[in-house]
């Protein structure tokens, strides 16, 4: 079960990050994470312009079952948020790695991307978690 796009990097806490062509970083939660949370009913988005530090909480996803912080994989400022999630949080359940993206960061230190887990490392982690 490895449907993880190869261009993503991960935090252990199940956020994904993708370096876009324009040098910004798109962030979401993994398909595994949405499956663990179950039906999402609410997403608390960061505000545009907020500065975020790598590893700090800056959004919240809430399912029927639980609330979960979303940590930013990189430091920088929020330049875009996925406003469509306000009305359709279930988009994350349906397409966690695509339309279910949560926010986009203009990174202050792009090298932080190198410290994240590769898709293979992440796949191995979730495999271990389920054992």
């Amino acid at each position, binding site marked *: 079960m490895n449907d993880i796009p190869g261009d993503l990097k991960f935090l252990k806490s199940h956020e994904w990050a993708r370096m876009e062509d324009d040098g910004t970083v798109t962030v979401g939660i993994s398909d595994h994470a949405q*499956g663990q949370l*179950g*039906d999402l009913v*609410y997403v608390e988005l960061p505000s545009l312009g907020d500065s975020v530090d790598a590893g700090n909480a800056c959004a919240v996803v*809430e*399912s*029927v*079952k*639980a609330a979960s912080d979303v940590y930013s994989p990189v430091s920088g400022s929020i330049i875009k948020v996925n406003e469509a999630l*306000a009305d359709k949080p279930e988009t994350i359940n349906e397409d966690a790695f695509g339309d279910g993206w949560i926010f986009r960061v203009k990174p202050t230190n792009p090298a932080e991307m190198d410290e994240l887990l590769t898709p293979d490392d992440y796949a191995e982690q979730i495999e271990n978690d389920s054992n």
Partner: protein
Amino acid sequence: MTQRTVLNNAHRRLGARMVDFGGWDMPLNYGSQIDEHHQVRRDAGMFDVSHMTVVDLRGDHVRAFLRHLLANNVDKLRKPGKALYTCMLDEGGGVIDDLIVYFLDESFFRVVVNAATRAKDLAWITAQAAAFGVGVAERRDLAMIAVQGPNARERVHALVHPAERAQVEKLARFSACEAGALFIARTGYTGEDGYEILVPVHLAEELWDKLLAVGVKPAGLGARDTLRLEAGMALYGQDMDQTTTPLEAALGWTLALDPPERDFVGRTALESQLLTGVGRQMIGLVLDEKGVLRHGQRVITARGDGEVLSGTFSPSIGKSIAFARVPAGDPGAVLVEIRGRGLPVRVVDLPFVRDGKVRV
């Protein structure tokens, strides 16, 4: 040691996400718990509730025993098959468990108690039963499937043997009958019509598959929780326990203080609480803003702070709802603290949803 119901393989075949629930390996959902919720509100769904504890009580003095054991009055049960929801209290009036008791005949009553409280309930019931010469027998040979929803009954009727169908069809609400090997009760924990069916363990999977074949869809514990909360039904361990009396848990309607000479366990404590005043109450809350009310959140009222007991997102309403325990009296404008912010909530009468209709 995790326990499994006899339907465990059936759940896994249906792709259920399994979770540990009070020591039982149970299905949380089979995909989307919100879809399963709507399925029960709009059509028919089924739950494996075989983890619950069925106890048969037999003896010449079983009615007298239950008059003593239970806070509701089994003398309301006169017609064989009739059921009663009640709390079982300790001497201090604290809730040991909530349960359903069925009257079958003058020497035979059946109770269904919670799974998580099994050991303490059996110990308590057995200890109390001794003086009445009542035999206490747990029925681990029975599985239990709850079929719930506006179309649940007709789906079940199609599966009942023709010779027994008429008596099942005419079952009144909160009554049960035997139908072949099945014990069928028109009860539930969703706020919808339907049945809870006790079935011998060796026939359970066959019944489950037959229900699937007539269009009853499986639903997990996730949907069960949102359904019962919308229906205003308390969950033992979360909404009340041995540190609360029924009067503090919106369960005063289950107490039978008449006749005054019925000396049930906890009666003295309840009477004294009524005289000195009940300090806490359980209320229903709706959050109109975005966010989800959850167990343990602080509730700020004009009379002081309380806390959220059960809280969830209500799929029928599209907003978050909760039960909260707060100081007695008019709570005034109420706030719930979510991640450091006080959000205004509405205090509403329970239930939130009845027979498929939103009431708040």
